[in-house]
């Protein structure tokens, strides 16, 4: 069998998987080497900067993270942010992107133990309220009642702390 990319004999037969679709690929040793190196996925956010007008691109150029000086345009072409503060600087632009990728914009996982107590509590409340919503949606009323109690006691705690 001939290589898909040059006239040599194919020695590598691979099944390429992309977005759940499979495609057969037959390559010679040399093209296979190249394929292994370049077969990295596209950066997620490089989606069509070419489709934008000059003024839109200038707009992206003006959006700069004050901390690391990365422009939003650079992010669009590289797919990587420059520093933790970029998430704040580009918040409005990132939210729709995050919704697109994750279907959500609020973290509900692990929380650093070193985080301040009150922010940890606030976060715990967000998490419990999410769980409550899910429990109600699933009609697990026993679970929902339990969560409601937890939320109330946490709210009381916060209120007490506020008065002290």
């Amino acid at each position, binding site marked *: 069998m001939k290589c898909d990319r040059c006239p040599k004999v194919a020695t590598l037969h691979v*099944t390429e998987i992309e977005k*759940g*679709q*499979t495609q057969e690929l037959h390559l010679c040793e040399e093209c296979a080497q190249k394929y292994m190196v370049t077969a990295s996925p596209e950066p997620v956010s490089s989606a069509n900067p070419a489709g934008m007008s000059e003024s839109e691109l200038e707009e992206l150029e003006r959006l700069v993270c004050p901390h690391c000086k*990365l422009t939003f345009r650079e992010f669009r072409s590289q797919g990587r942010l420059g520093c933790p503060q970029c998430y704040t600087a580009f918040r409005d632009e990132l939210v729709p992107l995050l919704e697109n*990728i*994750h279907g959500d914009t609020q973290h509900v996982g692990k929380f*650093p133990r*070193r985080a301040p107590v009150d922010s940890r509590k606030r976060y715990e409340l967000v998490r419990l309220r999410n769980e409550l919503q899910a429990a109600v949606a699933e009609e697990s009323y026993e679970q929902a009642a339990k969560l409601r109690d937890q939320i109330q006691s946490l709210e009381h705690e916060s209120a007490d702390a506020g008065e002290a």
Partner: protein
Amino acid sequence: MELNDLVPRRGEWLRGTGSDSDIVMSSRIRLARNLAQFPFLNRADDSVRSEIERTLRRHLNELSLGGPRSYLDVSHLERLDRQFLVERQLISRELSESHGSRGVCFTEGENISLMVNEEDHLRIQVLHSGFDLDSCWQQINRIDDLLEERVTYAFSEELGYLTACPTNVGTGIRVSVLLHLPALVMTGEVKKVFQALQKINLAVRGLYGEGTQAMGDFYQISNQITLGKSEEKLIRSLKDVIPNIILYERKVRSALVKDNRAELHDKISRAYGLLRSAQSISSQETMDLLSSVRMGVNLGFIDDLSIPTVNELFIHTQPAHLQKLRKTTLDSADRNAARAGYLRHRLSPPAQGDKN
């Protein structure tokens, strides 16, 4: 432990134990973390990169990982050595190919590896044999807690752990399971599985992670979403779906044995025979034949070979491993001859290579 000490050994994740290890080769969890006080790596110049590397190296060397560990300065390694670590799953291709200060810390059993200055400042990885995501999570969560006592991670209440790429933000977790699916591939049923997985936001990749093709009928299934769901929930989503794939593969294997026993036995025996007698063999052909042999051992068609040995051969016949075993660099033709020689040595009757 020096890099060269690894050559004749095999990582614990290849030992073929654990739940459903006939089909689930390994379970893996990785966490992406960044230090709050530094920019991400594409905005870090050489001196900042070195500072991040020095900071993390110091903490990693003091961390309790339940046993001896090694730290390798990847920027000072030869290309062959870096490729060797990639084949071994201790580092990613990205860490191998990038530039500047970077390193990897790993435990003796090769279950735990911590990559410094990959796409993020720190990538923690825990790898176990078989279908065992709970152990992976328990272990990686503890390591993360210990590190967090020493460093301040970039974190926001809203978006969780902040990562260089927004695809990892939130939990920064990737939960993956490496499956061996020869029967589903043989019958073409595997495409249906991929389509179903895609619908529930799970990704399918080849043996060596992102962007690699499937080799030896191995497929990595992992979560795509990292934000808006807890780590436990993301792990649960894999724990729920993987048993169905395992069952599917088993059903198709049984059907093949029942309906095409002679044909299947012939295919497996020929694969075994070729591996034991070839004089020159490519990496790809080796993977394909080993895949048949691995299924043959699991179905009882081959009884003088153990699964850990087969698992090990998948790794030890890779190009960099062969060259490290031979202690010399080889071109492609020489590698194919060396690979065939190594396989004959390990598989020739009476299976003296099979020390397990």
